[in-house]
């Protein structure tokens, strides 16, 4: 088990290095001369040459790459053009709200997706199955930014059931201000015993979380259905039936335990995808996370920030996959006994 984990960690490390290299390459695909851009439109030729030297762009590409790698490892991810702060510190501030959103969405997706997938597999071909399948495909076909706008319109503007945007009710800023410690609004409200704020943060979380949960829920339901149906014809299921186990035990326990492996892999995948999906919805919901930061960086053409976000999310994705792989090996003997 430890050997497996060690091997996977080493592999992940290699992949991360590769990711950094690819990000570097993307950074240097920029057409035009970055030195000229930096120096400004009225710079003279010699000033541009000076700029190039200053930015280190006159060094051979390999040297630039090594220096970039070193920079990333030591925490120097560049300076954001639109916030004028270190990109890394920007990212660390922006990450918790996004993580809160994504984790909540994943929890919703799992709680909805797994039972629906099981139900679907229980009576394949019947109306419930068809409906769930259609719903799942709808979930994975949904343009998330559109869904955000529509839900905002319907539930906020028209029905007034849920708040439109923000992390919490602005009126509470004065009466029950939020003391930020971890950066996660819900957790901060919880640990400081700020109940009105807790209620508010939860309420404001609902709509964005539902929007982000649509794709994962659809994917998980489909995955569970497919995996369970794949195993249901196998002899060990017949054996379980012959031993007297009931259908729900068979689906919910025996078949599901087998399905966990690919479903867990799917969860890692949708974690990464959802983190990127927040880029599309955070500005709609005024959610101050990585997504808003990314959207702002894109509209101001803030290249260091864009690359910083890319690197950050990609590394988070690699880590998530690593964690899932190791957990999977702990649960499923077939993986570690291979």
């Amino acid at each position, binding site marked *: 088990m430890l050997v497996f984990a060690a091997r996977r960690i080493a592999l992940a490390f290699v992949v991360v290095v590769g990711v950094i290299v690819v990000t570097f390459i*993307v950074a240097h695909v920029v057409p035009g001369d970055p030195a000229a851009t930096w120096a400004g439109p009225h710079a003279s030729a010699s000033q541009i040459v000076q700029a190039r030297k200053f930015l280190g762009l006159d060094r051979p590409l390999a040297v630039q790459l090594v220096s970039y790698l070193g920079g990333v490892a030591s925490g120097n991810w560049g300076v954001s053009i639109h916030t004028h702060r270190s990109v890394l510190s920007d990212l660390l501030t922006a990450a918790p709200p996004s993580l809160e959103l994504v984790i909540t969405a994943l929890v919703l997706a799992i709680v909805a997706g797994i039972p629906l997938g099981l139900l679907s597999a229980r009576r394949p071909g019947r109306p419930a199955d068809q409906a769930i399948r259609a719903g799942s495909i709808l979930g994975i076909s949904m343009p998330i930014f559109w869904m955000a706008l529509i839900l905002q319109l319907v539930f906020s503007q028209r029905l007034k059931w849920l708040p439109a945007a923000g992390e919490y009710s602005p009126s509470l800023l004065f009466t029950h201000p939020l003391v930020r410690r971890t950066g996660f609004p819900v957790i901060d409200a919880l640990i400081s015993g700020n109940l009105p704020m807790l209620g508010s943060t939860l309420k404001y979380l609902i709509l964005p979380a539902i929007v982000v949960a649509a794709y994962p829920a659809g994917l998980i339901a489909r995955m569970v259905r497919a995996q369970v149906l794949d195993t249901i014809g196998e002899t060990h299921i017949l054996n379980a039936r012959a031993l007297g186990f009931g259908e729900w035990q068979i689906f919910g326990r025996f078949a599901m335990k087998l399905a966990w492996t690919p479903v867990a892999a799917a969860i890692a995948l949708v974690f990464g995808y959802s983190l990127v999906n927040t880029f599309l919805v955070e500005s709609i919901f005024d959610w101050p996370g990585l997504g808003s930061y990314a959207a702002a960086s894109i509209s101001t053409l803030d290249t260091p920030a864009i690359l910083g976000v890319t690197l950050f999310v990609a590394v988070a994705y690699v880590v998530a996959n690593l964690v899932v792989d190791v957990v999977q090996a702990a649960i499923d003997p077939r993986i570690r006994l291979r």
Partner: protein
Amino acid sequence: MIETPTITPPKAAIPRGAMWRGLRANPLLAVGGGVVLLIVIVAIFAPLVAPFPADAGTATHPFEVLKAPSAAHWFGTDQVGRDILSRVMVGARVSPVIAVIVLALACLVGIPLGVAAGFLGGWVDEVIMRVTDVFLAFPPLLLALALAAVLPASLTSLTIAIAAVWWPWYVRLLRGQAASVAGRPYVEACRALGISRLSIIFRHILPNSITPVLVQVSLDVGGVILTASALSFLGLGAQDPVPDWGLMVAEGQNYFTPDWWLVTFPGLAILVTAFAFNLLGDGLRDLFDPRRSFLR
């Protein structure tokens, strides 16, 4: 994206009767295929069928601004008075074309690399797969976004950005196919007889791979369309006046609260298109891999 079809073993040609029975028993395929066909027809004939085809171009109508849906304008008009129905119809040409180009490029790059990796094995396999793994370590939208952000915003940049991100899946798929075929006894026999590797590739590996590639492509179209519309929404793709659906949603955002039709219809078009292609892809997968059929 992770839903690659299982590797299909080489089988005898499917009898025609079975194909038709499969179609009738497979409502997903029928509905998905039907809607896709409709979208393709609309896309091809849009300039002829759309009520105000010029509105998909540079025409503006300052006196018809922000009109709600009516008999004259079924989908209403936008902030410069253009008929939204016409723009949506002509916009049907944008996304599918991007999808076709992206997937063609992905196959063009991914198939040879995958076959090389799976068939030749050894260090070729290792190198190709490590590079592929690195690209797969990025959620697709993320890397496409980074690329599109550093390139000047246009449909071309968007297409290149997405294509650069989509090929790894095809490398993996073909590698699996090639490796599975390469390990078979009859291939060993072929080699023993002195038949060239290239010949084996073209006569055995590629024909067996057509089905899974076809299924993967149809499953991917929806994903590419969603990615493309997301990037356009962020302003990284098509620019005004191109009637790209994602761009239309972005432009309509500011007017959304009273004038809901600017956002609703283009977004609905994205949803329906992605949905139809996903149904089609699912249907094809069920058709070619009967083990997965819901009938059992």
